[in-house]
């Protein structure tokens, strides 16, 4: 096994080892030790990943190319490591020479390496932070047990070489997320949030399974590069004829792509399955930083990155629409939230929307680049908010804060750095990390607009550029609002202010992440590595399919066949990219300044300006609408209630008329409906979780209606079934 793959495998297994150890003797190890062990394990993973990165960049161990007198180019002429293993024979017989196997495997390219480095780095920092943050929690060892399992699953997801593995680890990270959201299960809201996350993700997974099923049906469980090779032409939107002669219709390809993408919609909390992520903030804050900001929710983007070559134009359009909807909606909702973690949660949604949008528009590098930079500054924001919450004795409401910069300066400053990073701070072409990645996405969006225009598409395609542009301003504004309300102004809760103080062990991760947030865009070479990732994968595929250009198909321009051996790019021709970049520069060049300036002015002194402003009725209505998260939860709940009502009406009818005979009349039915109506009133705002639970419960009541415990009822139902069956069958067969 090649060295990088081996190192990454070790990095994956280390957290599993810590999980296993902690599972059995974690409680005996006690409060600091369990955390230290877990941190050492994930730290080991980080070291392994870094060594793997070094080896990957330069197998020879030399960083200087003496022949050309230059530093060796990033990722030049690498071959991805693709190691498939036959795991399960499916279907065909043992006597066959070559049975159809369900493959598992390891696939390592630059993207894998980048993801590993990012995940292990953020996870290590979060582990260190958690040792301080969770110190007083009685279930301290269990927390680290779960974290270990999570890290293992997340790394396993990234290293997996087939979609099947992706799905397996996908479910595992979902399970960890469920366990960690519900970590403080004594809180009803926490355990409800956990269930909500679980259910919502199942919906997404169902879509994923459908897509997976279609893929599976046509190709079997193939490794990632094989999948790209076989379906690499999906971007053209034609039917694809497989080697076996089976035609894979374009429409089905689109359905498959959308289905697979639905998994990402669930995990990355995209519209319309976004409702779980804000509630997931009920979990401990380090968990929010690690899972619900930096890694797991970004797994959706990673997935789209992996299936990118097999997305048809239709599927890409769907992806882009989802992304743009989410980023707009979430940013608006974030404007009105008062809980510091909710603000960050919606900001996460919005940034994920950007990544998904980038994927949909064909900017593979942009989306994944933003994933990495976002992981740094959003983890920083969450850890910062954790520090604030820790200092404020678990008070999370912005109106209770104010002026905290004087008490917790390190947190305040690092948080400020993160705000600048997410706002896209830049001067003279140099900026914090968020600037580079977001600009790349927006520039591509601009180029996309021009391309759409030139290929005669509707002008609505320009929305993919203008909405994110506007939201760039909004982002800077709401993040500034969050910072100002927390750290600036006069203390609004004197008691809280007096007792606030920082824990030193939490500084190190904050500072480290702050540094990464500053330099992550330009100096770590992330985008170069990603660029080389495309090149590697493309070259690997071209060894078999000479015309492969799965990562580079520009759309919505009409499909053009690429020439053999052309340099693969993620974008269209360079002049259109230039035009897009120029347009972006005009539109959002100073967005960070406008947003931050406006935020600073309005929230200069707490709510003194913003308060009266929102009293103005139209603004207030909008504020309430946004504050209540556009009523999505209520909408979903009403739909559930409608279904439940219909079902219970059916079951009541069944119960009353068929089972008990007509004897009891409609009284019971009326009573039941009335009861349900009352129930509806009482619980209608209690979240969609209850809805699902009740749905199953009512369904259960319906099917259990005959299970009255009366043997004669059983026999009667049986006999009626026999009678109907017999009579029906006989009549049908006789009438032929």
């Amino acid at each position, binding site marked *: 096994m090649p060295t990088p793959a081996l190192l990454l495998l070790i990095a994956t297994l280390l957290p599993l080892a810590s999980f296993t150890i902690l599972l059995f003797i974690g409680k005996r190890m006690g409060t600091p030790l369990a955390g230290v062990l877990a941190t050492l394990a994930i730290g080991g993973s980080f070291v392994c990943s870094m060594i793997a990165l070094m080896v990957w960049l330069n197998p020879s161990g030399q960083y200087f190319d003496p022949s050309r007198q230059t530093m060796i180019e990033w990722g030049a002429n690498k071959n991805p490591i693709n190691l498939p293993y036959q795991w399960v024979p499916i279907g065909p017989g043992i006597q066959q020479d070559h049975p159809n196997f369900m493959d598992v495997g390891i696939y390592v390219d630059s993207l894998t390496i980048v993801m590993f480095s990012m995940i292990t780095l953020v996870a290590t920092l979060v582990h260190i932070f958690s040792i301080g943050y969770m110190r007083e929690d009685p279930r301290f060892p269990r927390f680290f047990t779960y974290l270990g399992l999570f890290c293992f699953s997340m790394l396993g997801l990234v290293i997996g070489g087939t979609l099947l593995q992706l799905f397996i680890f996908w479910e595992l990270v979902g399970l960890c997320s469920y366990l960690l959201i519900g970590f403080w299960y004594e809180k009803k809201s926490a355990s409800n949030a956990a269930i909500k996350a679980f259910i919502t993700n199942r919906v997404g997974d169902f879509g994923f399974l459908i897509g997976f099923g279609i893929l599976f049906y046509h190709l079997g469980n193939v490794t990632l590069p094989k999948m790209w090779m076989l379906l690499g032409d999906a971007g053209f939107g034609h039917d694809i004829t*497989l080697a076996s002669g089976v035609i894979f219709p374009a429409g089905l390809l689109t359905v498959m792509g959308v289905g697979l993408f639905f998994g990402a919609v669930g995990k990355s909390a995209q519209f319309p399955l976004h409702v779980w992520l804000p509630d997931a903030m009920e979990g401990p804050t380090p968990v929010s930083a690690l899972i619900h900001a930096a890694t797991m929710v970004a797994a959706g983007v990673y997935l789209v990155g992996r299936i990118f070559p097999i997305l048809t134009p239709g599927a890409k359009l769907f992806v882009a629409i989802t992304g743009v909807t989410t980023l707009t909606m979430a940013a608006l909702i974030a404007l009105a939230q008062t809980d510091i973690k909710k603000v960050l949660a919606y900001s996460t949604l919005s940034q994920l929307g950007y990544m998904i949008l980038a994927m949909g528009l064909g900017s593979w590098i942009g989306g994944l680049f933003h994933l990495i930079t976002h992981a740094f500054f959003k983890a920083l924001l969450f850890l910062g908010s954790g520090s604030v919450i820790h200092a404020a004795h678990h008070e999370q409401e912005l109106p209770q804060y104010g002026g905290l910069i004087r008490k917790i300066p390190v947190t305040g400053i690092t948080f400020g750095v993160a705000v600048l990073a997410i706002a896209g701070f830049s001067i003279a072409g140099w900026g914090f990390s968020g600037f580079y990645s977001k600009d790349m996405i927006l520039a591509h969006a601009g180029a996309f607009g021009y391309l759409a225009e030139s290929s005669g598409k509707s002008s609505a395609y320009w929305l993919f550029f203008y909405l994110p542009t506007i939201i760039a301003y909004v982002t800077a504004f709401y993040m500034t609002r969050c910072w100002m309300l927390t750290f600036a102004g006069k203390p609004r809760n004197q008691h809280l202010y007096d007792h606030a103080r920082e824990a030193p062990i939490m500084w190190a991760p904050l500072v480290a992440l702050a540094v990464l947030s500053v330099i992550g865009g330009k100096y770590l070479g992330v985008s170069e590595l990603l660029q080389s990732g495309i090149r590697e994968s493309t070259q690997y595929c071209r060894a078999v399919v000479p015309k492969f250009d799965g990562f580079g198909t520009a759309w919505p321009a009409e499909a053009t066949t690429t020439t053999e051996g052309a340099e693969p790019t993620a974008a269209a021709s360079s002049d259109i990219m230039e035009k897009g970049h120029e347009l972006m520069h005009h539109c959002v060049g100073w967005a960070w300044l406008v947003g931050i300036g406006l935020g600073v002015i309005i929230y200069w002194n707490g709510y003194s300006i913003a308060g009266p402003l929102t009293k103005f009725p139209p603004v207030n209505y909008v504020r309430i609408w946004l504050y209540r998260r556009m009523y999505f939860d209520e909408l979903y709940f009403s739909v559930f209630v409608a279904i439940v009502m219909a079902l219970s009406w059916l079951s009541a009818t069944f119960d009353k008329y068929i089972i008990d005979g007509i004897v009891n009349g409609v009284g019971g039915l009326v009573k039941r409906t009335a009861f349900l109506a009352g129930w509806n009133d009482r619980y209608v705002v209690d979240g969609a979780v209850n809805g699902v639970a009740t749905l199953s419960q009512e369904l259960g009541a319906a099917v259990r209606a005959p299970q009255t415990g009366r043997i004669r009822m059983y026999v009667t139902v049986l006999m009626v079934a026999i009678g109907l069956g017999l009579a029906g069958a006989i009549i049908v067969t006789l009438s032929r």
Partner: protein
Amino acid sequence: MNLLAAAIDRPFIPGWADPANGLRPFAPELWLIVAIVAVLIVPFFTRRSNLACAATALFGLIAALLATMIVGTSDGVVGSHFRGLLVVDPVTVFFKGLLFLFVIGIILMWLCTTSMSMHEGDGPEFFTLLLGATLGMSLMASTSNLLMIFMSVELASLPSYVLAGFRKTHRVGAEASLKYVLFGAVTSSVMVYGLSMLYGLYGTLQVEELAHQMTTGSATSVALLTVAIFGLLIGIGFKISAVPFHFWCPDVFEGASIDVSAFLSVASKGAGLVLLLRILMTLASTAHWHNVPGISLSAVAIVVGVIGSITCTVGNTAAYVQTNIKRLLAYSSIAHAGYMMCALSMLLIGKGAESDLKDPASVATQAILLYLAVYLFMNLGAFTVAGLVYRQTGSEDIRDYRGLGRRSPVLALCMFCCLVSLIGLPPFAGFVAKLNLMWVLFRSGGWWIALIVVIGVNTILSAFYYFRVIRAMYLENSDAPAFFPNPLGLAISGACSVLLVLMLLGWSPLGRMTDYFSHLYFGSATVLVHEQPDMSSATASR
């Protein structure tokens, strides 16, 4: 070694070497009968009769298991014996092996749960009944003669009725056995009526002959044939507890002691499924079905598939509000039987018709065998934990599982593994089994896709109620004291959990084994129409 093997596969009479006509193929059954008699005699020589009987029964079952392995793998025993009344084929051998293994597990489970509360002196009766029912089930799996079907179903049922009410002073036990016997008597009598019609239509009791007559003989009434098949389905549906013949199942499982519930949950249903499998297979494998006027196999397939999907839906939804763990597991077992029935419906697809698979029946058989094997372990594990908790707390209420993760972590972990496996989530073999099943349905295409959707939705539904138990164990607190469970019970449930993980990792050997058996059964290799696409020849149409 050879001597031992000879002793086991030719019990008590030397010289039964003739594999074609001798009793040798039925050495496992003979060992069971020996054990039944021995269990009745042993108490006269010992004072601790319960334990002695358990040991005797264990010995008999182990001998039967070994005999199954030896006889089943030797040449020349496959085929029908005793004028077609009993058959030995790979599916039978596989199922018998599973069954005996499972009953051994049940007896071990009995030792650490119910045996403590059983009166000294009741052991002989208990084990006579248990072994008798086991004998019935193993015969159910190895016959395709109408009379023998009836006999073996009765032999499996009658002792089970008594077992359900074995705790005589328990009111729920008495009620459970009353419901069981009434329901069973009604369904079996209707079945006999149906069988008599089958005999009347074709004049034979052999299912193969019958299938042959159906397709080649003179056209008789399809209406009466429907009646007859209906009757047969009712009798077997009762054993499988398919909707609407499932009513007894939750009540009996709740009322019976936990080892009996566990026994019925796998053994009885498995035997019914294998019986149904053989009948459907025999019907389907007879050629020229399109010659039969007015009735098509696909209609029967649709009926089986629809019953299967209704069964799993009913099982899963009804389980949702249960508070009694045994009742919950009862509904869950209904659901799992439903999943397997869904795959059974595939047996009836004609070769190559509307399907990508050249031999869907063999693939479906493989999926069912694998599911059964995995299901056995997850159910045994879950029931054992439930039994241990019952012994400790005297309660079967899910509320008494609160805080189990703290009170008895290893036990809770075993339960967790089994439940997650029952849902069908990845780290456990339940995932393998379900995925395999769904995959088979998927490959067969056509309206079987709808069954996949049903199974998928059901998997989501089932997650809710299994998670209720998990949630109670890990996310809720209680003041109940911590306890250390019986080590034997812990060993059983732990072994089941570990096996579930190993089966996932060893998916390949497991798949190969079941594949091997199903192929032996069908006597030929099957080839998938879709070959693994070749890397070098991928082309795209423009």
